[in-house]
């Protein structure tokens, strides 16, 4: 096969050097009952030309965001990726390296991860960030588990219903076998977490209070409203962010009392790719860093005084601590942490703000447009939003989306799909914009609404 370099003669020479007559002799310790002499029931090997054609035909069956106007969000926002980013990611020195266990031959990856940690810490206003997590939902779960370890012997976590339903579903999966109670707090009429219900739910058994901002309906939450009641009872405040561009315009969690911030950083240069791979983040206060899960990179000097970067504080990790580790996570999300770092570097502080302002302006334009449509549609909640909001639909959401498709518009995420168990939200449609969404697309969407 083309990825195996040995010619038949070379393979024979190696077999002879090893001292066996056939390849199968190398498998002599495999029980005979299970050793297969016949090839697996798969198609014959295929050339690049054939495989490229097959995969191209399959890909053509999808609606891609380059050809459709998209109002899809729901935790994953298709922003523009600077052209150089995917090109540099293909450099073999990044693509085909592994976790930088050996700092002397991994300064490239290590420096980039340290920059990723710095970007996340600066954006979130936290002291320390780790080298990245798989994606937003598991990052959120790890943040809650970290809170549990820090507040020893407490057994309750208070979670806002404004946190993405898939994130909350993951929390239930991971906590299923821990003696922990999850209490969910409903949203008020403005779409933000009910402050009264939250304050009433926090007690001396509570180790953490978690909210998301902007929340699943795009509504900007108050970090302080979560941190205040949490701290009053000695609990920690966990803040979730899955649209990181919002932090260019909004007070970051670290400046408003949040102790652990976690979520999704895929908005920065990571392709949507049907929802994965993405790049999660986790950041915390300095005093908590010994409980942080996953990899951490530190900046130090080598024996000659030269600046050098290295993995650090690894005694928290599974390869040393085994079942006593802070998490079972092994690697980080290297290549996409690098994509996010490259994208943030080229955006810089000015590009971040300009992009965020475009997102906000387009969303506000769409909201004003909905108000102007004298029909059965309205913004579902009165709370302030960033680049996404929930639209309350008189007609069935499915019919709205069907008419959008006729105009080649992906008209948003039906909340029924996010949270099928929450029938109270089944008439809601989430619509999101990014700097990629042209005004013409927004006007076409408003035309569809006017058709009802």
């Amino acid at each position, binding site marked *: 096969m083309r*990825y195996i370099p040995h010619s038949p003669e070379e393979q024979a020479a190696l077999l002879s050097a090893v001292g066996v007559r056939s390849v199968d002799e190398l498998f002599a310790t495999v029980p005979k009952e299970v050793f297969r002499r016949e*090839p697996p029931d798969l198609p014959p090997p*295929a050339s690049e030309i054939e495989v490229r054609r097959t995969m191209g035909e399959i890909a053509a069956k*999808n609606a891609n965001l380059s050809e459709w106007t998209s109002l899809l969000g729901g935790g994953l926002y298709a922003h523009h990726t600077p052209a150089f980013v995917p090109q*540099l990611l293909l450099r073999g020195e990044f693509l085909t390296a592994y*976790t930088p266990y050996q700092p002397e031959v991994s300064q490239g990856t290590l420096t980039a991860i340290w920059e990723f940690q710095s970007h996340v810490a600066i954006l979130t206003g936290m002291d320390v960030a780790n080298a990245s997590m798989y994606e937003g939902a598991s990052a959120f779960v790890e943040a809650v588990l970290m809170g549990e370890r820090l507040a020893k012997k407490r057994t309750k976590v208070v979670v806002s219903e404004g946190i993405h339903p898939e994130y909350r579903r993951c929390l239930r999966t991971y906590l299923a076998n821990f003696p922990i109670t999850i209490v969910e707090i409903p949203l008020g009429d403005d779409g933000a977490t009910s402050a009264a219900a939250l304050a009433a739910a926090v007690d001396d058994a509570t180790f953490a209070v978690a909210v998301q901002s902007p929340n699943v309906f795009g509504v900007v939450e108050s970090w302080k409203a979560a941190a205040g009641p949490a701290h009053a009872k000695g609990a920690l405040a966990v803040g979730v962010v899955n649209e990181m561009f919002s932090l260019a315009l909004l007070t970051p969690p670290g400046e408003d009392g949040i102790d652990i911030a976690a979520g999704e950083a895929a908005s920065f240069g990571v392709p949507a790719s*049907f929802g994965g791979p993405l790049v999660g983040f986790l950041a915390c206060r300095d005093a908590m860093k010994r409980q942080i899960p996953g990899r951490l990179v530190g900046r130090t000097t080598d024996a000659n005084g*030269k600046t050098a970067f290295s993995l650090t504080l690894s005694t928290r990790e599974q390869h040393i601590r085994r079942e006593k580790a802070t998490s079972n996570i092994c690697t980080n999300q290297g290549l996409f942490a690098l994509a996010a770092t490259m994208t943030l570097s*080229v955006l*810089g502080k000015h590009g971040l703000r300009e992009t965020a302002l475009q997102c906000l302006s387009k969303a506000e334009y769409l909201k004003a447009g909905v108000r102007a449509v004298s029909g059965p549609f309205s913004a579902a909640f009165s709370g302030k939003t960033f680049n996404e909001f929930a639209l309350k639909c008189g007609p069935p959401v499915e019919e709205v989306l069907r008419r959008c498709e006729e105009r080649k518009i992906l008209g948003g995420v039906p909340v029924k799909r996010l949270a099928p168990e929450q029938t109270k939200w089944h008439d809601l449609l989430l619509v999101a914009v990014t700097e990629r969404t042209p005004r013409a697309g927004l006007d076409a969407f408003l035309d569809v609404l006017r058709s009802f």
Partner: protein
Amino acid sequence: MSDHGTLAEPVAVKDAGLDHRRPSVSLFDERRPGRKGVLLPPLDVPAADPVALYGARHRPEVRGEVEASEVDVVRHFTRLSRLNFAIDTALYSLGSCTMKHNPRLNEETARLAGFNDTHPYAPEHLSQGNLEVMWRLEEALKVLTGFARVTLQPSAGANGELASALMIRAAHAARGNPRKHILVPDSAHGTNPASAHFAGYEVVEIHSSPRGTVDLGELSAKLDSDVAALMVTVPNTLGVFEEEILEIARRVHAKGAYLYLDGANFNAFVGKVRPADMGVDVMHMNLHKTFSTPHGGGGPGAGPGGVVKELVPFLPVPTVERRGDRYVLDSDRPRSIGKMRSFYGNFGVLVRALTYILSYGRSISEVAENAVLNGNYLRKRLEPFYNLKYAAPSYHEVVFDDKRQAAVGIHNIDIAKRLMDYGFHPPTMSFPLIVPGALMIEPTETEPKEELDAFAEAMIAIAKECETRPDVVKSAPHTTPVTRLDEAALAREASKVGSFAPVLRAKIG
């Protein structure tokens, strides 16, 4: 580098092949006020006023962020890339990690706009191609493993382990008793006990036999009705096949427990043995190992989990089903353990793995055959020079140790660092824990004979240097952009005052 000329002589040192010029340390050290690297289209709607909208919650400026042009950024990251060792330049002997060639066709297919630029919440009828990729990959993995179903959702190997342990627990719980313990051999990857712990189990360790395999006597002694599962790795982390795997499975099943296989080493037998035929009930696979998706400097990976029929109801949701000529996502699975992550999995990694499997087709057993051949060839060449604690037949990797070199005060880490001067990535040293001073070497099937020979000759030269000029080995590496760091101090402490006081982030000011 001043040492390079003297210390490297007289042995012909190739050097690590990296760029020695000092690159810009970090873009945070070189902020250029006013610079920016992007231009947005003119705003085509009225500009919103965030101050009026957000009031006190408005953030006027992200202080401390980078200010740089596109040129600055492209140069910075290109220079950084030249400080990395990678498979594309030479053999990467890091055992257990399966650092093999990453075919570029896989990168091209994953970047097709029809895959790369698609949203997980697009309607199912507009996502048929994506669902077809997932369905086809699951079918191929079913053929290769013999399992009833395979979940593609776990984000990485450790996440697949956790999903597996959660399914095991759910299945026992459904029969009324989740049980208490999971048995883990002392040769296991560190993620095994960590994953078992996070599924709510206590870990009970099983010692290895003198052959390096599971000790059947100890297994039987520790197998009781409180044991939920045994987690094994085949071939294990010593590169040794569990010859008694069928008997192990029989004993585990006789106690009503499940047999879990850590599929990190599936590349040693893919196409030659179906794990389900060995009595395995549940197994995770690392697509970034066996199916050659790139490691990317530490991710993303993907850790699909295969299960026997009995465990199918507990798979994470959603699954992909084919109904007639349509593919659908099925979340209506009441006994499921739930969701392991947002959306459906590391889809881009799945596209690469399917591309790889389509390329190999039924010849995929050549992967295992040549991985095992190359592993054995290196063993043969290095056995005269390095101690082999466990002499059982090797598969895709071989674990030597530093026993002989330790006699003159040289340890595995010194040999590893010296190997960099010869242009190779060091072996794995942090495990298996049952081999102190381990040098775990995995060449993979994609290394040509001359590269295997060059690696062997470098290892042999170092073995000789340990005797003739040990100081050169102990002070290695001599040809890398930075010299040796105090890794033990770094591992323990990130805020200690003194020469090793690593800083975890850039300052804002």
